[in-house]
């Protein structure tokens, strides 16, 4: 085991996969400046700074994938993805299907997002659900260094286009990583971060931390919470979620992205359609508001579900409503 940050884990995954497969190339605005060691070891042909032009960066990745390479394109921040949306959604996501399966698009598009930098809505926008909605794309959003590494490696080896979201607030978080080059984490498997019996918390990215904190605080009140980290939003590990909900009968879904048509809505629908008989209470969603991310630190933080709100929601679900709970929940 090695201790490393999320940022280091991503770098290591890129390095190992470039080592592993000469078809892997890395491109993006400034990637050759940022990963100078990769340029030195793998050459300027495989690690390319691009012009500042997301539409052609993503389009080039799609074309390169169709042509036999395995591109990783760093699109920097999620709010820049809309410029590249045509290539990702209309080409990468559809061309395998509409060619009758003749072509594959093995590529990864990376982008950062999330609160933590206080620079506002044009750098911070959790757009992952938009891509979950687009057919043909896989979508990952990990929370631990080990998962960033293992999932990025698996994404690069996958035959499909994968959107790989990096929660900015986690970049410098450290964790233990099994640093064997063949250590991959398969797409579509959720991780149970903590076992519990009274309530299931489903989350991904930085709000997994809020759930874990909440679960710890709930212990003092004799409430046992299970915390599931989805990691992969598509494919979605329905079985792990359903098995937990069937045991606990209560479900709270937590994410930073806004709630309308978001991942939490999908998880709630999953529970309602496939575990309805097990539910003892309505499903609770704690999400970001239907508002652009503010720059001001206090507003930015107020837009992210915090442990306090998760605790309040769990107490309400398990023990019934209280004034305090209602006051806290009013923010979300």
């Amino acid at each position: 085991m090695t201790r490393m940050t999320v940022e280091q884990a991503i770098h290591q995954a890129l390095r190992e996969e470039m080592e592993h497969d000469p078809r892997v190339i890395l491109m993006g605005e400034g990637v050759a400046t940022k990963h100078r060691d990769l340029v030195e070891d793998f050459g300027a042909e495989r690690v390319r700074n691009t012009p500042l032009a997301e539409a052609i960066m993503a389009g080039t990745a799609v074309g390169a994938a169709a042509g036999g390479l395995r591109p990783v394109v760093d699109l920097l921040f999620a709010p820049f993805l809309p410029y590249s949306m045509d290539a990702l959604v209309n080409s990468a996501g559809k061309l395998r299907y509409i060619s009758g399966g003749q072509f594959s698009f093995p590529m990864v598009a990376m982008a950062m997002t999330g609160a933590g930098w206080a620079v506002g809505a044009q750098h911070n926008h959790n757009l992952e659900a938009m891509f979950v909605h687009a057919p043909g794309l896989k979508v990952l959003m990990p929370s631990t260094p080990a998962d960033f590494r293992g999932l990025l490696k698996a994404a690069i080896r996958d035959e499909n286009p994968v959107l790989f979201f990096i929660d900015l607030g986690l970049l410098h978080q450290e964790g233990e990583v099994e640093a064997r080059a063949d250590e991959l984490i398969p797409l579509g498997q959720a991780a149970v971060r903590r076992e519990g019996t009274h309530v299931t918390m489903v989350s991904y990215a930085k709000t997994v931390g809020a759930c874990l904190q909440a679960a710890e605080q709930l212990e003092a009140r004799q409430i046992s919470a299970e915390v599931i980290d989805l990691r992969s939003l598509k494919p979605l590990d329905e079985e792990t979620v359903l098995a937990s909900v069937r045991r606990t009968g209560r479900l709270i879904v937590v994410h930073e992205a806004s709630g309308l048509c978001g991942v939490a809505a999908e998880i709630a629908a999953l529970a309602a359609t496939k575990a309805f008989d097990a539910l003892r209470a309505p499903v609770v969603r704690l999400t970001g508001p239907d508002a652009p991310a503010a720059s001001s630190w206090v507003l930015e933080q107020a837009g992210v579900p915090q442990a306090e709100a998760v605790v309040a929601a769990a107490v309400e679900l398990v023990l019934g409503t209280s004034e305090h709970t209602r006051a806290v929940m009013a923010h979300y």
Partner: protein
Amino acid sequence: MNVSEHTEPVADHHGVPGPTHESATPEARLSSLETMMLIRAYEEQLVELQRGGAPGTCTSVGQEACAVGVIGALDERDRILTNHRSAGHLIARGADPGRMMAEVLGRTDGYCGGRSGSLHIASRELGVVLTSTIVGGELSMAPGMALAQKMGRGEPGGIVAVFFGDGAACEGIFHESLNLAVQWQLPLLFVCENNQWQAFVHRLETMPDRAIADWAHSHGLPTRSVDGNAVEEVYAAAARAVAEIRVTGSPQFLELVTYRQRGHFEPDDQSYVDPDELVAWRRRDPIQGYREHLLESGLIDPEGLAAMERRVRERIEAAAAFAQASAWPAPDRLTDHVYA
């Protein structure tokens, strides 16, 4: 890299000489110097605040002459769209450094009540419609603003000025915006501050050297490329373009060749920058050069300059004090302003 190849004015595709620098009054020239100094001091204060934990910013250190020269050629009727490096444009337009700093710190007295931060400041009262942090966002909106102007929705005789960088010229939207503005004959001044850098990538890694002016010219716009570190040259070129746009109602293009002296976004150690290039451009600092020029020409003496420096310092100290004393927004106002 050979710096001079970027500093010598690229051919004026019009071939007509502009108004002379001497057309500016002594007061206007002194005021240009003071405004450039104010922009510099404001951004240096932001760097200090960032070191103390405030959010980072994109400074325009080295580009002050672009902001002061072009904004000086506009008037109250005009509307402005700009990019992430907008502090100079705002201050030259008369923005209050205290309210700008409050915005950077995320406080209620900021121009946008803490919703924007440094990267998206807009001010209706100043006619600054957008600071776009999506590179090219300003180019995308500019033709529509100018269309509204043309269709009688702005102040009579007003035009729209859009500021963007050399990096934005790499986005497809650059060409889309220019082409539409020409085809629809829109009263729009395109201002490209070519500061040689696109975040952490040198522009020569992404485009041919003279690409920007050539591209603009090929769209059929009157295009001028001038030394962006010489405030009077910038002013003269902008004043002429603005005057022509007011008469013809059709777009023009101004490339200002300049340099980003600090990093892309604070903090930034600039380890990726060629030190020789940086030193060469610092020697051509727009403020230092203009101070010397005004001293030599006798428009100001050392005491006058010291008094100017003092005024600037006092304004920035007051601005910082105002910003730091400003209240944080209340968390329960988080969703104000999302919908009309």
